[in-house]
């Protein structure tokens, strides 16, 4: 069993968990969750050093207090894609799968944007866009002198927030080579194509000009993602940026690349189709595994 087949299987399961959450809530930010979920899976199941723990964490406070301080950190700057992180954390055993059935319910530990004091495994409260990179930079500076790394995923629709560019400049200035920012370029935001709403291209050239080492990858190609994550330099002084070209709603045939699925309120027959498609993907990945 290779890392790639294992991660493909886990990503297929995670997609199934996303649909499960949408069933619970009746709606959710599905499109972006499914564009970045392969990379989130690869981070948790292959790349990041996770805190050792026997079974699910009892609660968020225990996690924050007791999780190995030398662990790698993951910050979802594009917090609305949280179903991807919830799904992967559940799959990785941070909390029982049944918690996924509380999405959208009163008092849930998995709100529509992540809360580090509610769910074990969440490292930062994101949701307002343009916050994650500065928080991640602070973590990276605080972890300097250890070999821990900080990974953050931003959306391409998030890039017009000026605070991102403050943090991009500061990360290079402070030589935060232990910071990896992944831009999930699915090309769509709520009102249309990102390049039409506010064109931030060429993103790679801009980040290079800001002093980052920039990589590009197909963010839905698990083999390519893992190959790139393995190739990221360690001990470097340059912060690392990955421009990940992805497909919004990847994995749901009727929704892939369609802007109206940014926030999805499924009709019953659509939900049934989504469940069938994600189940088929899991079965196929299980065979490969």
């Amino acid at each position, binding site marked *: 069993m290779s890392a790639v087949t294992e991660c493909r299987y886990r990503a297929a399961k995670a997609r199934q968990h996303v649909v499960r959450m949408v069933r619970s809530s009746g709606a959710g930010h599905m499109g972006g969750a499914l564009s970045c979920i392969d990379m989130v899976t690869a981070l948790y199941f292959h790349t990041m050093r996770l805190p050792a723990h026997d079974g699910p964490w009892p609660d968020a406070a225990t996690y924050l207090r007791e999780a190995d301080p030398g662990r790698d950190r993951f910050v979802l700057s594009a917090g609305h894609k949280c179903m991807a992180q919830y799904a992967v954390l559940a799959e990785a055993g941070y909390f029982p799968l049944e918690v996924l059935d509380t999405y959208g319910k009163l008092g849930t530990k998995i709100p529509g944007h992540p809360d580090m004091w509610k769910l074990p495994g969440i490292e930062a409260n994101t949701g307002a866009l343009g*916050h994650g990179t500065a928080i991640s930079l*602070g973590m990276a500076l605080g972890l300097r002198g250890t070999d821990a790394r900080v990974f953050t995923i931003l959306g391409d629709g998030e890039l017009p927030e000026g*605070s991102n560019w403050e943090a991009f400049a500061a990360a290079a200035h402070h030589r935060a080579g232990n910071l990896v920012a992944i831009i999930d370029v699915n090309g769509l935001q709520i009102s249309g194509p990102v390049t039409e709403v506010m064109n931030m291209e060429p993103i790679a050239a801009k980040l290079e000009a800001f002093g980052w080492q920039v990589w590009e990858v197909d963010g839905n190609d698990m083999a390519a993602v893992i190959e790139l994550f393995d190739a990221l330099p360690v001990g470097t002084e340059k912060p690392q940026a990955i421009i990940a070209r992805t497909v919004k709603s990847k994995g749901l045939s009727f929704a892939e690349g369609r802007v109206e699925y940014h926030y999805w309120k499924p009709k019953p027959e659509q939900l049934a189709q989504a469940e069938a498609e994600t189940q088929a993907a899991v079965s196929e990945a299980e065979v490969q595994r």
Partner: protein
Amino acid sequence: MSIGELRDPRKTFGAAIAAVAEADERVVILSADSGKSSGFTDFAAKHPDRYFELGIMEQCATGVAAGLATTGKIPVFCAIAPFTEVRPYEMVRNDVGYMRQNVKIAGRNAGISYSDLGSTHHSLEDFAVMRMIPGMTVIAPQDPTEIEAAAQAILAHHGPVYIRFGNDPIPELFEPGEFVIGQARLIRELAAPGRPAVTIISTGALTNAAIGAAELLDAAGIDVELLGMPTIWPVDGAAVRASAAKTKRVFTVEEHYVLGGLGTIVQEVLDGTGVSVTKLGIPHEYATSGPYLQILSSYGLDAEGITEAIQRSING
């Protein structure tokens, strides 16, 4: 150091923080091109690994502070007050407040103390906006000894803190002592039963003017209980209620808008008690520019102005 001696509040704060940081390696300093004016020049030279210059990017500085705090550091971000509160407010609310991080935000040149630089550089809403963040402690020391003691207290306190102080040198009013967050300081007690009595509750550097007003009022036959309120939030409600019960007339004095600040907080505490609260502060407008003390006087925020306002109120 002695009572009445004038000291720079910014340098006093910087030196006090640096002294703790010498012994506690968790303390890190963040600057938005503001470290030198905040008294951290020596610390920066001695501990470059614990001093982070962010340049003029206060949103980033606030987020970075929160991130650092998640790793166990105790970040102190000191800059010109409005650029630590309203400029990065969403970062203060979400990254520091909502994430419950142990970040200390110090607004220097606060209130109207960047007097001639105009309204962009005034912070007359900081009490109001910062206390709206659940879990945030808001502190406005009244003299250099309180700045020093508060610097130690906020570093010992686990949780987000906003502390503000001014620009001009301010006199020592008190003997050095411990700063207990959330505790009022009874500066002057009622002396002569039978005379008309009022409570003055003041905060920040204006407590000096309130002390002067209390003396003038005393000479004019009005007894004053003066409560210094160096912690704006959480407010010492018990002290407010106890004094108000004695005098039934409360005046608040602050270098802040009369909306949303100490006066509003005191009014909330006394809600339903029938005690009248008169709020002395800056009117809700874009304040005038000019020399600091002249601005304060023009708004009636000196000993004479406070005295007149109280006499006017009592005499109807």
